[in-house]
């Protein structure tokens, strides 16, 4: 069996906060298969971004990281910052929420794409510029020949996000991690960018990790979804299974709290309480104080993320355990 593209094993991250270490990530394990699209959802502060910043060594040096990251089955811990820079962009590319501030304001967009092409594929200046031009066409920027010499501030948010995607594609990565790529954009532009990401994935066969707090976006273009809560993955399932039959009470709560444009209009069922402070997590299951299904045992131990069916994992004492038959299926 070939090894998965990327494997995160028991990743933990601690940040120094006022003289103490505060754990932001409590052992995240995740597998990305070649070519698949994984959605990572969770609310603000749940650890979505930190997971991938830790995996790609982009966190500030003061952060304490433990656990393993495997690329093609090989650990990347030993890599130096320089070697890691080669992996980033070339093997794993990242794009972020606010395209306009992720681009360098003083360089023309064409130059920034060409730079990435030179860095990752060793083209000379003329070839890199031609490739930049081709990439702008590829991400469907109209009149690419003229836009190539524009500065980011001369372009709209949607066009800048297309430029970011072009920069990301420059290294022909095997995995694109898109962190809230459409959150800063209007809904009609968001739809364009989601369509573009899906198209690029079809054409290049690259894998995609789409980070979002919006379940609708994730449902739209991913195959599998991992739900995070308070620094842990609490549920992981194929996209249809997750939405049709959520097993974790937090996922169930999120779906019940979600308004929709279609279907019958009903009063939303809110999750009561609030997201816990990472510096003072409740004992046992972090969701226990808000969980309608909690039992006494939930506050004394932390549920592990276990298989509940083929290709499904849930971290909840009350989720139905998988039979060996289901797992073998």
């Amino acid at each position, binding site marked *: 069996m070939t090894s998965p593209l990327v494997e995160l094993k028991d990743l933990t991250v601690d940040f120094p906060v006022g003289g103490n270490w505060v754990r932001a990530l409590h052992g995240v394990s995740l597998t990305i298969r070649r070519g698949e699209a994984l959605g990572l959802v969770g609310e603000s502060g749940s650890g979505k971004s930190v997971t991938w910043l830790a995996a790609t060594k982009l966190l500030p040096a003061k952060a304490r990281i433990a656990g393993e990251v495997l690329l093609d089955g090989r650990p990347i811990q030993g890599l130096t910052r320089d070697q890691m820079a080669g992996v980033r962009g070339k093997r794993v590319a990242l794009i972020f929420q606010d395209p306009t501030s992720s681009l360098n304001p003083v360089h023309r967009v064409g130059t920034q794409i060409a730079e990435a092409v030179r860095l990752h594929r060793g083209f000379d200046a003329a070839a890199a510029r031609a490739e930049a031009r081709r990439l702008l066409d590829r991400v469907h920027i109209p009149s690419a020949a003229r836009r190539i010499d524009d500065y980011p501030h001369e372009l709209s948010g949607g066009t800048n996000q297309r430029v970011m995607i072009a920069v990301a594609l420059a290294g022909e990565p095997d995995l694109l991690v898109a962190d809230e790529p459409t959150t800063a954009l209007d809904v009609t532009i968001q739809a364009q960018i989601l369509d573009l990401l899906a198209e690029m994935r079809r054409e290049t066969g690259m894998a995609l990790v789409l980070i979002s707090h919006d379940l*609708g976006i994730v449902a739209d273009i991913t195959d599998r979804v991992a739900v995070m809560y308070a620094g842990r993955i609490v549920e992981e399932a194929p996209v249809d299974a997750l939405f049709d039959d959520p097993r974790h009470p937090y996922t169930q709560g999120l779906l019940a709290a*979600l308004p*929709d444009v279609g279907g019958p209009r009903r009063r939303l069922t*809110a999750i009561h309480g609030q997201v816990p402070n990472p510096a003072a997590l409740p004992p046992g299951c972090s969701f226990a104080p808000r969980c309608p299904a909690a039992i006494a045992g939930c506050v004394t131990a932390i549920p592990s993320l276990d298989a509940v069916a083929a290709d499904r994992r849930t971290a909840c004492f009350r989720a139905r355990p998988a039979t060996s038959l289901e797992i073998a299926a």
Partner: protein
Amino acid sequence: MSALLEVEGLVKHYLVRGGGGLFGAPVVLKAVDGVSFSIPAGRTLGLVGESGCGKSTTARLVLGTLARDDGKVVFDGEPVGAVRDARWRAQRRTMQMVYQDPLSALDRRLTVGKQVMEPALIHGLGTAAERRQKALSIMDAVGLSSRFFDRYPHELSGGQRQRVVLARALILSPKLLVCDEPISALDVSIQAQVINLLLDLQDQFSLTYLFISHDLKVVRQVAHEVAVMYLGRIVERGDPEALFHAPAHPYTRALVGAIPTPLTRGRARASLQGDPPSPINTPPGCAFHPRCPRAEARCRSEAPLLRPLDDGRFAACHFPVLSTPAREAA
């Protein structure tokens, strides 16, 4: 039923620097360009549209915190002036605003209790003891326990802060709440709490809402009527179910069709091409024509007026879509 709020022909134009750099000739930016609507007492009008279409400007014009260039606003039978005299202040007491970011709307040096009582103090309402009593009862109504009375805003979660903002607005017993993206800054699991709270408060205090949001899903949850804005104008207005199920205006159609939801996963979306044009140099004729899949020659020269359709809805389009549901066409 007479309307609590009536707005007619609101206009706000700005002169901004043109394209020619620092010394470019000033050009007109049409932030709001002829907006009319009315809201009956106790009802909610949802105002939706993409960023920059003029929603917040409309809100400020309604409240009179921004001077309008044209049009009129009548609140509870009285014209709302743009002059900040005693009458405006008395009127303002019964029209309150709730903003997107609760933290910046609060004073970080004041305890929650002081902030909630402050508007009553400013308007000289009641004795200190009465204000305290009222504040505690309003805090209870918005779901803030009295133990928060002596806490500071930074010690509260986003949802709790938005409750403080609501309590502060409600202590003056307003008739109208203008909510500008009131839940956009909140965590996903908290948004439903605040949506439900707004609905309960409306029942309890017979409140009227002008509810502004870019999120159609949220607007559908709270609004009795919806108005869709595009480049400073209302392009469609009507019952939320009719409007979201079978939008008549091609822009509403695109907007509804673009929303990704778990319910519609896997279905093809009919995407809208292009960026929204800027409110400077809006296209002639129908401002939506450069992006409209139904545009014809007439659309490029003649601006469509907001006209009633058979089912009581209003649409500003020469060729409105009259039957097919939005999300099944593709």
